[in-house]
């Protein structure tokens, strides 16, 4: 693959991002921005751009990149191609944490909420790994099955409590990713996940080695346990931050790394920038499509990704079977 393709892809994503700035109900265009439009109010257009469109576009890029990278990370750590935060119980546990905070400490500031959600996500993912350890014969497909079922059980717990406390609507909000409520001051948490993605990049080689299994990693002089812990913390915190800001984006972390690895192979340092860029691009494209299909209304990205992501996932599953027999 020529070296210039990544910058090219980045430019493509940049164009998508610019387009995203100009899609919406309120009229924001170059003409209204710089005045001169008949009856246009330049101040209002600038206002919409700065308070709503720009934060939304940034949130899309940050959340897309972060979720795709945490999918890749989780796949390395669990050593399974079909795992991502929403098929490992991570996202569902984070939602459980969010609900418990709203119930027990509704006044808690947003960082506190995220901390609790991260801890719950960490516990849920830990439980997932503990169950996996009980399955000696690791058919690669059992792993996501266990994760999805665990997620189902945790969701049932969440809904049981939420049902009694009239929180079902908040829970539905976290379950369906939606960027329509993103405004200036409501998305900054995502910069934290961007920082965590940076940490993941710095430690990428360790994760690659850890992805070869505990014995190989230990032989190569890596503290497997520490690397696992670091990876799980990054994944949990990223997932919690994204869910706290805009809700769950299903299948993103599954599709993007799989497609990238088809082209690029499994060296994490090499594929991570690709995963981040493609993740941001996919989310941007889905969100723009969701805003255009039933304009002036919009379809939340959780629904769009549910349709596109599950269709792609099915393709991956059945195609793989055809090849591997």
């Amino acid at each position, binding site marked *: 693959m020529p070296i210039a393709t990544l910058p090219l892809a980045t430019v493509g994503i940049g164009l998508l991002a610019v387009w995203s700035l100009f899609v919406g109900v309120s009229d924001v265009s170059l003409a209204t921005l710089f005045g001169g439009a008949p009856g246009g109010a330049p101040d209002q257009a600038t206002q919409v751009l700065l308070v709503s469109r720009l934060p939304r576009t940034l949130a899309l890029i940050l959340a897309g990149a972060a979720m795709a990278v945490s999918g890749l990370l989780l796949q390395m750590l669990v050593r399974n191609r079909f795992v991502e935060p929403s098929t490992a119980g991570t996202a569902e546990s984070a939602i459980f944490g969010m609900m418990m905070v709203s119930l027990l400490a509704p006044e808690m500031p947003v960082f506190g909420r995220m901390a609790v959600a991260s801890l719950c996500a960490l516990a849920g993912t830990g439980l997932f790994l503990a169950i996996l350890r009980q399955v000696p014969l690791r058919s690669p*497909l059992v792993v996501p099955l266990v994760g999805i079922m665990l997620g189902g*059980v945790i969701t049932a717990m969440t809904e049981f409590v939420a049902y009694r406390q009239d929180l079902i609507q908040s829970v539905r909000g976290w379950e369906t990713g939606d960027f329509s409520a993103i405004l200036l001051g409501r998305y900054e948490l995502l910069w934290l996940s961007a920082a965590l993605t940076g940490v993941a990049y710095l430690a990428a080689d360790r994760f690659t080695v850890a992805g070869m299994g505990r014995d190989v990693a230990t032989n190569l002089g890596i503290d497997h346990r520490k690397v696992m812990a670091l990876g799980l913390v990054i994944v949990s915190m990223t997932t919690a931050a994204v869910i706290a800001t805009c809700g769950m984006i299903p299948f993103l972390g599954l599709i993007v790394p799989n497609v990238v690895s088809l082209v690029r192979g499994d060296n994490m340092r090499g594929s991570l920038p690709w995963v981040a860029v493609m993740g941001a691009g996919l989310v941007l494209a889905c969100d723009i499509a969701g805003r255009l299909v039933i304009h002036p209304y919009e379809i939340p990205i959780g629904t769009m990704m549910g*349709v596109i992501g599950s269709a792609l996932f099915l393709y991956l599953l059945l195609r793989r079977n055809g090849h591997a027999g």
Partner: protein
Amino acid sequence: MPADRRILSPMVVLGGLSALTLLSITLFMTLGARGKWDFILAFRGTKIAAMVLVGYAVAVSTVLFQTITNNRILTPSVMGFDHLYRMIQTLLVFQFGSGLVASLDPRLRFGVEVASMVVFSGLLYWWLFNGAGRGDNRRSLHLLLLVGIVFGVLFRSLTSFLQRILDPNAFLTVQDRLFANFNRVDVELLTVSALVVLAVSLVGWRWRRTFDVLALGRDAAINLGVEHRRAVMAVLVMVSILVSVSTALVGPITFFGLLVANLAYLVVRSHRHALILPAAVLLAVLTLVTGQLVLERVFGYNAALSIVIEFVGGLAFLFILVRGSAR
């Protein structure tokens, strides 16, 4: 299974289950009743009828589905059947408009829905179970399971996508049809469903020995002279009808069938469908009625039964999955 572990004969087990079920129904009808009896009996009677019908449909469809797929961990719901049903309902309204769909005779509408469901699911699952005929004849079970679950997600997402695009009136029509629960059951639909279920049962009962043969697996069944393709297709049709009935009445309950079917095999310790089917039905009704009774009388609220079932059933599913893979 060693013979000495079979302490009770299947008939005794069935008798005991029937007695327990009757007891739970009696308790449900009478416990904590204040006010006029004819109102209470009619009100609770509708609920009971719905629970019996749903329990019956879920139990029978799961056992039959497990028979044709030769597997104790698959259920129609896990394979996305009921999300498919919801999607088809939504599609019908989307395509033909709420006015037309709402003005149809409920029996006719039900017929149309079930027919499209049978055609769709028949094609889909036929392809899934037999599609790998080239080369490797059987798809791996785990792949099937995962594909089924993801199909369920796909159908659900598509449904909510369509519902977003529907105009509000049409959406209300769909919502009315899809989000029922045990406390708000359409009496007219209940009657239609009961008749449909009765018809399926009459046909199915005559086939009960064929089911026993089908359970031996495809090759053995063909050797024993069963027209396998036709029989499986017939079972798929029955399953689709039963799933449609239960989904139309109370909405999807994913793991319930898995729970009662496995329990039935556990308590009856037989593979004869003449014993397994009634046991599964009794267990299903018993669980639903007792669960609802406990929720209503002990915890004092309604409608959360499906959530509790989802929780327990999900745990059971995980357990079976982990234990099954460990072997």
